[in-house]
C-alpha cells in the first residue's frame, strides 16, 4: 500500500496546469463537509483538506473561523481522518492534508513514535501529501523520515521572504510540489494579484524547473487571479479562503452553499484549463 503516491503519479504524465481547492474537515459539520468535498472533486486535480488546530498562526480570520466551526461541530483529528477515508473511497485523486505540527506529534511517548503512528494513519486513510503550517526545514528531519517510510509527500511552504539558501535546502528534500505563498501575510482573500507574487513565481521557477512543480496559494479568489498566476509561470493554484467563505456565507442555506461552491470551482477550473 505504500508503493504508489497519487501526487507523483499525477505529475508523471503531463504538464497541465493544476487546481487544488481547500476545505477544512468538518466545516460546517462533517456530513456537509463530505458533501462539499464530493461537489468539488470533479473540478479539482488535488484535494486539500485541513485538519483543524486550535491555534493556526499562519491562517487569517476566514480559516480560523472554519476551524472553530469544525470544533463546535465536534470534529477532532480522528473524525477528520475518518471523513478523509470516506472521500478516498470515492475518488482516486490525490489528497493533501494541511495542519500544524502539534496535531501530528500526539499518541506516543516520543515525537518519533507519535509521528510514525500519525503518518501510518494518514497513509491508511488515503492521504498522499501533507503541508505543515509551522514546520520549517530546520525542524523537519523526523517528519521527513516518517513521510519517506509511508510514501507521503512532505510539501514545503516557500514565501517571498525565503532566501536562495533556504530554497536550495527545501528543494533537496521537498516532495510533490512547492507550496508558494503568494504574499507576505496570512491566508485570506486579496483583491488583486500583487507584483511581488509574480516576481516571486519567476524567481522560484528559475530554481525549481525540472525539480518540483510550483503551486501558488494565499489570497487567490477569482478566475482572473488564477489566470494571472498561471501566466506568471505557476504550475498550479491553491484556493482556500475564497472557498471557505462560500461555506461561511451560506451557513443557513446549504443548497445555496452547494450551488455556489460548484459554480465557483468550475469557474476556476475553466480559467485554468483555458491556459492549457
Amino acid at each position, binding site marked *: 500500500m505504500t508503493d504508489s503516491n497519487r501526487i507523483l503519479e499525477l505529475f508523471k504524465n503531463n504538464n497541465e496546469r493544476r487546481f487544488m481547492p481547500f476545505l477544512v474537515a468538518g466545516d460546517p459539520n462533517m456530513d456537509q463537509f463530505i458533501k462539499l468535498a464530493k461537489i468539488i472533486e470533479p473540478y479539482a486535480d488535488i484535494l486539500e483538506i485541513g485538519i483543524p488546530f*486550535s491555534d493556526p498562526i499562519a491562517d487569517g480570520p476566514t480559516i*480560523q473561523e472554519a476551524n472553530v466551526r469544525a470544533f463546535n461541530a465536534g470534529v477532532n483529528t480522528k473524525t477528520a481522518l475518518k471523513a478523509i477515508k470516506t472521500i478516498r473511497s470515492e475518488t482516486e485523486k490525490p489528497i493533501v492534508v494541511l495542519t500544524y505540527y*502539534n*496535531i501530528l506529534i500526539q499518541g506516543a511517548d516520543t515525537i518519533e513514535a507519535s509521528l510514525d503512528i500519525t503518518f501510518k494513519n494518514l497513509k491508511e486513510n488515503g492521504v498522499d501529501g501533507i503541508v505543515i503550517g509551522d514546520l520549517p526545514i*530546520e525542524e523537519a528531519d523526523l517528519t521527513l523520515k516518517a513521510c519517506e517510510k509511508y510514501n507521503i509527500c512532505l510539501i514545503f511552504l516557500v514565501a517571498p521572504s525565503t532566501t536562495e539558501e533556504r530554497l536550495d535546502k527545501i528543494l533537496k528534500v521537498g516532495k510533490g510540489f512547492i507550496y508558494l505563498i503568494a504574499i*507576505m501575510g496570512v491566508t485570506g482573500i486579496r483583491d488583486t494579484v500583487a507584483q511581488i507574487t509574480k516576481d516571486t513565481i519567476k524567481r522560484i521557477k528559475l530554481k525549481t524547473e525540472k525539480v518540483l512543480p510550483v503551486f501558488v496559494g494565499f489570497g487567490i479568489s477569482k478566475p482572473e487571479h488564477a489566470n494571472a498566476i498561471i501566466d506568471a509561470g505557476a504550475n498550479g493554484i491553491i484556493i482556500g479562503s475564497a472557498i471557505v467563505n462560500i461555506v461561511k456565507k451560506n451557513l443557513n442555506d446549504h443548497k445555496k452553499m452547494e450551488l455556489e461552491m460548484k459554480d465557483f470551482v468550475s469557474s476556476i477550473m475553466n480559467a485554468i484549463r483555458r491556459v492549457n
Partner: protein
Amino acid sequence: MDYIDKYPDELGKFGEFGGMFAPEILMPALNELTEAFNRYIHDENFIEEFERILRFYSGRPTPLYYAERYSDFIGCKVYLKREDLNHGGAHKINNVMGQALLAKKMGKKKLVAETGAGQHGFATAIAGAYFGMPTKVFMGEIDIERQAYNVYRMQILGAEVIPVKSGSRTLKDAVNEGLRFWIANLKEYHYLMGSVVGPHPYPLIVREFQRIIGKEMKVQILELEGKPPDAIIACIGGGSNAIGAFYDFIDNSNVQLIGVEAAGEGRDTNKHSIALGLGRRGVLHGAMQYLLQNEYGNIIETHSISAGLDYPGVGPEHCYLHQLNRLVVGEATDNETLEAFKNLSKLEGIIPALESSHALAYLEKNKDMFKKDDIVIINLSGSGSKDLDIIKKHMEFSIK
C-alpha cells in the same frame, strides 16, 4: 552543574525543548533577529547603552529588601527582590528596553507586541514612547475587560491597543494575532515578545535581558548575608521573571530554584494554568514545551486570577530545567494567592502583583521546608496596583 551559557544550541534547543516551529514566512526574520542579537549582545556600546537606560530611566538596581515582619511570619529570612519598583511597576521593562534598543539598531521603525495582563503591553508602550517608535499591542477582549487600567495607560502613552476576538480571547490568542500581524509587516516592525516563549531566538533574548535581576541579586545577597540564598522563589507564567532571577544561580546547586505556577481553582479542576506540573510536551507559538492540551493536541483554555499567568504553555528553558531536576515546580491556587497578597500588604506595606503573590503563597504553604536561618529570596516581579479591579471582587472595601 555546568549549565550557564550552554543553551540554547544553534537551533534554539534546550535539550528537546524550544526550537523554531514557525511559519516559513517568519524564518528569515527570525534568523535576522538571531544574528543581530548575537552581534549586539557582545557589543560594548550596546551593553553600555542598555545598562544606562536601566539605571537612569528604570531605576536599577532594584533593592533586595529584608522583609523583617514577613520573615517573622514565615519563620525564615525572607528577602524581596523589588522588581515592582522598576519604572512601569514590573520586571517587564528590562526586556522591552533591551529589545526596543536592539530593534532600533536593526533599523526597525515600529513595535508590535502581545499582552495578557497588560503589563508587557504597558512596558512596550513605554519603550515605544522612549524610542519614538509607533507601537501596536494585541490584547484579548477578555483581558481588556479585566485589566482596563492598563489599556488606558497604554493609550496615554500613545500605543494602539488592538482587541483580539479570536479563540479564548486571552494571552495565547493575542500572541497568535500579534504574530499574524508581524508576518504581514516584517520589514517595518519588530515583534517584541514579552516572555521567554515563542520561537528561537526569543527565549534566549528575553532571558539575556532579564538576567540583570539575578546578577544584581547575587551581588546584593553577598553584601547583606555574605553568602548565596538557600532558595529563590518566582512565579512562572511564560517564565521571564523566573529565568531572570534564577539563571545566574543555576550552576550553584546549593541554591534551590522554585518556580510557582498558577493552580487557579485547583489542580483537580480544569481551571488552572499548571503547564509544567500537568502539561504534556507539544508545540505552540514556535516552541516545543509543556502544554495544556487535549488528547488531539489542541490547546485547552486556562485560568488564573492573574492574567499574567493565564497561559497554556511555559518557556522551553524551564521545561528543560524541570526535566534536569534543577527546577522545583510548585503551585498556588487563586485563594492561596489572595491570602498571600493580603499578608504581604499588611505586614510590609508593599502591595504585590497577583502574579508575584503566587510565589509568596508557595512560601506560606511550605514554610516548614525552611529553617530559621535559611535565606529565601522572593522575586517580587511586579506591583499590585494594576490588580485593583480584580482585588475589589474579592475584598470588602466598605467604610463604616
